[in-house]
């Protein structure tokens, strides 16, 4: 239905453009120079007058209709069902949706619920017909009004350009709205989480087992939310990744910038970039099925027990993923060091490597630090590699051969699968998400700041 409406709207907008243009020619008696604007602007004026109100109407209707229908259907249920507590009511609503969409509801639903489900389905169908009618009516009203306003002295161009200006502004505001959306959604859920779990227990607790007891006597169901082991695990894996990525990435960047010839650069750089283009799920598969067993078997050979979900495997593969990130950022930074510094060092008789170590690297250090910070932020936020290759159990350990878990792994395990939206378990994921967002944001801001400050120095 939505698709039909959108296609109809596109058609109407096109008709509107054509109508406006031809109307403009009629109004000016086929002498376009007497018009204030070019005829196409009159067409665009009508098209905008059709499209914008209709799209707004469409979006509002899509958002509001389900809520109204739900209220009506709930109001039609017998009083004893309406009086049920909220969570039971939620289950019944679920049944109603299932019946409405023709799925199998819970075993043996209440006849009143079945009736309500059918009512819901029919109301939704009626609603979507009404919506089609309303959207097209709004579009047609826009068409008629806009067409009637076309006159030789009407300033179509000014109106159209001002409208487009506003549209462009709205488009660029989406970035701000996304950030606000992220912050609000994370903060609201986190506040609700801290209503159930004390703030200090979350930040400084050393016990993490997010199962909530279904029964009082259930084993291992303490429901502890101390996130220290998770933060420690994240840092451990990030540290391992950096141990791989920073030396390799930095040396690769130095070689590319200072030693490599043009032809070597031309093929080696894109090949390194391929590493950045491989989807993370592929790295995850590689870590879980190739690298982790390799480390485990290697450990067995020399008599060390290495867990098959060791932090080492996940960290090393994550490091490989981040190499091109470090190398291309450092490459830019090294290339930004002015040639005069190099020439000065060579003139004093320094070899190339001495120049790099004693002149270029100190000069490029802020930029390299910025690159490493950005790489750390990427490693902390990386999800699929750790979900597939790191463990689930929250061990508080610094031993890279054991299994640890990370913030992103916990977010995924807490939120994938069946979930009720109010439990501390689900809300904990949002609290972890907020921590992740804040930490990566701080790292990015610092890194961008460092890099920018450094650039200004030489520009």
């Amino acid at each position: 239905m939505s698709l039909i409406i959108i296609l109809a709207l596109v058609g109407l907008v096109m008709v509107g453009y054509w109508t406006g243009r031809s109307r403009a020619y009629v109004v000016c008696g086929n002498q376009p120079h007497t018009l204030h604007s070019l005829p196409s602007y009159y067409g665009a004026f009508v098209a905008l007058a059709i499209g914008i109100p209709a799209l707004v109407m469409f979006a509002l209707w899509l958002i509001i209709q389900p809520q109204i229908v739900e209220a009506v259907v709930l109001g039609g249920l017998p009083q004893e069902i309406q009086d049920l507590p909220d969570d039971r009511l939620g289950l019944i609503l679920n049944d109603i949706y299932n019946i409405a969409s023709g799925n199998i509801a819970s075993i043996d639903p209440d006849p009143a619920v079945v009736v309500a489900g059918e009512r819901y389905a029919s109301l939704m169908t009626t609603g979507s017909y009404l919506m089609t009618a309303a959207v097209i009516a709004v579009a047609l009203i826009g068409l008629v009004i806009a067409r009637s306003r076309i006159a030789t002295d009407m300033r179509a161009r000014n109106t159209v350009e001002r409208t487009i200006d506003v549209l462009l502004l709205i488009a660029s505001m989406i970035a701000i709205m996304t950030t606000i959306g992220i912050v609000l959604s994370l903060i609201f859920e986190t506040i609700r989480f801290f209503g159930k779990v004390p703030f200090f227990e979350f930040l400084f607790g050393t016990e993490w087992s997010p199962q909530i007891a279904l029964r009082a006597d259930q084993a291992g169901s303490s429901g502890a939310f101390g996130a220290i082991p998770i933060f420690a695990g994240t840092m451990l894996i990030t540290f391992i990744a950096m141990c791989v990525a920073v030396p390799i990435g930095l040396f690769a960047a130095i070689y590319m910038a200072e030693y490599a010839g043009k032809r070597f650069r031309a093929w080696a750089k894109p090949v390194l970039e391929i590493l950045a283009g491989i989807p993370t799920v592929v790295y995850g598969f590689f870590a879980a099925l190739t690298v982790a067993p390799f480390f485990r078997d290697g450990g067995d050979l020399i008599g060390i027990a290495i867990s098959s979900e060791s932090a080492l495997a996940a960290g090393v593969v994550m490091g490989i993923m981040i190499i091109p990130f470090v190398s291309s950022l450092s490459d830019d930074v090294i290339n930004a060091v002015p040639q005069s510094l190099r020439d000065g060092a060579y003139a004093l008789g320094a070899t190339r490597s001495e120049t790099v170590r004693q002149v270029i690297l100190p000069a490029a250090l802020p930029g390299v630090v910025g690159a490493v910070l950005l790489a750390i932020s990427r490693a902390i936020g990386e999800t699929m590699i750790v979900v597939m290759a790191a463990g689930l159990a929250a061990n508080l350990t610094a031993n890279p051969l054991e299994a640890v878990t990370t913030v992103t792994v916990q977010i995924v395990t807490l939120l994938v699968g069946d979930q009720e939206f109010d439990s501390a378990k689900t809300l904990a994921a949002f609290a972890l998400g907020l921590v992740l967002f804040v930490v990566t944001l701080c790292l990015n801001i610092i890194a961008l700041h460092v890099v920018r400050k450094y650039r200004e120095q030489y520009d």
Partner: protein
Amino acid sequence: MTDMTTPKAERAATIRRPDLSAARINRRYGAEKRFRAYGLLAIGAAIAMLAILLFSIVSKGYSAFVQTYVQLEVTLTEAEIDPDRTGDPEVIRNANWRKITFESLRAEFPDVKSRSETRQLFGMISGNAPIAVRDYVLDNPDAIGTTASIWVKVSDDIDTFNKGFIDRNLEEDDRRVKDNEIVWFDTLDGQGRVEAKFNTTLFTSGDSREPEQAGVLGAVVGSLLTLIITLVLSFPIGVMAAVYLEEFAPKNRLTDLIEVNINNLAAVPSIVFGLLGLAVFLNFFGLPRSAPVVGGMVLALMTLPTIIIASRAALKAVPPSIREAALGLGASRLQAVTHHVLPLAMPGMLTGTIIGMAQALGETAPLLMIGMVAFIVDIPSGFTDPATVLPVQIFLWADAPQRAFVERTSAAIMVLLTFLVCMNLLAVLLRKRFERRW
């Protein structure tokens, strides 16, 4: 450096000794060579890791493109299929195809008597075999009453065995294919009735619990639907935002705020966008779970910064003289942009968009948050149908216990990488073809 601390006389002595100086130069050149070698080594290590990664995936996955089939001599007795000779497809469809198929297999091995052995024997062919036999008969109704030889798939274990991934010399308890299964298989193989054919199922069907029935088509279609939504949302919005920021935005705090925001969003972990989608799109607006439309919206928000940044770079590359010429001829600013600057910047914008789409195609984590991880057999046919995407399918298969799913996961990865390579090649070609230096 250390020279500074040595007494003057001694320093003078060292300078006058050319043999020591030569040694120092050798040392310095040695350090130079080592340093250079470290650089080469680093690049070599990175490339070697890429090679190992690709090799391990190809070597694990190439075997998924073939599937072992076995030829069954199926006795299609009229009494069992269509006793009243109606010729009605509905009647034929409802015959007991399981029994017919299994009887024909049992007829091959008359000495199989015991229940457990029979079960083992039946376990050698795919659970889909009766359906394959049924479809054969539906296509060839004349075959009823005769004995037809029909190729059916073997089960995933036998398939793995035939591809040589199960060592027949292992202890019987250590391998999934037992001794008598190997004997039966060898008998059939000896009669030339085992054949490895191209695995079309991998490309023509959706997910399945049985490895030999599982394919990537459902995930590919899901990815396509999701990417369409992403493209439709992020391309116009991204281009509009870039045009605003580059051409129209006044220098004020709002503009600064927008720019800072875009730069930061580009570095926000993708999983946070998934949390946003879950909290806002699913729980607040009540959009359906697992639907490509929601996935597309989340990915659009995620790729938006990439597209905006690339588009701004493309707009910046258009020289100001073009704008000035247009303005000088009396065009409005909007006309100058839409008629002159945008067409010139379009190749760069498209390149950025394709790269953004490639990123979106490979993205998994945010889609896990909005429920696109469900086990979905049907191929999605609309934007609100439950669907999964190719990377999530890889994630799901990587978790599956059967050995046969390992090779299918690798094959799915190859399919995904092929798509990514094509998209990136397109971007490179576009850039090469339309690159203009002013």
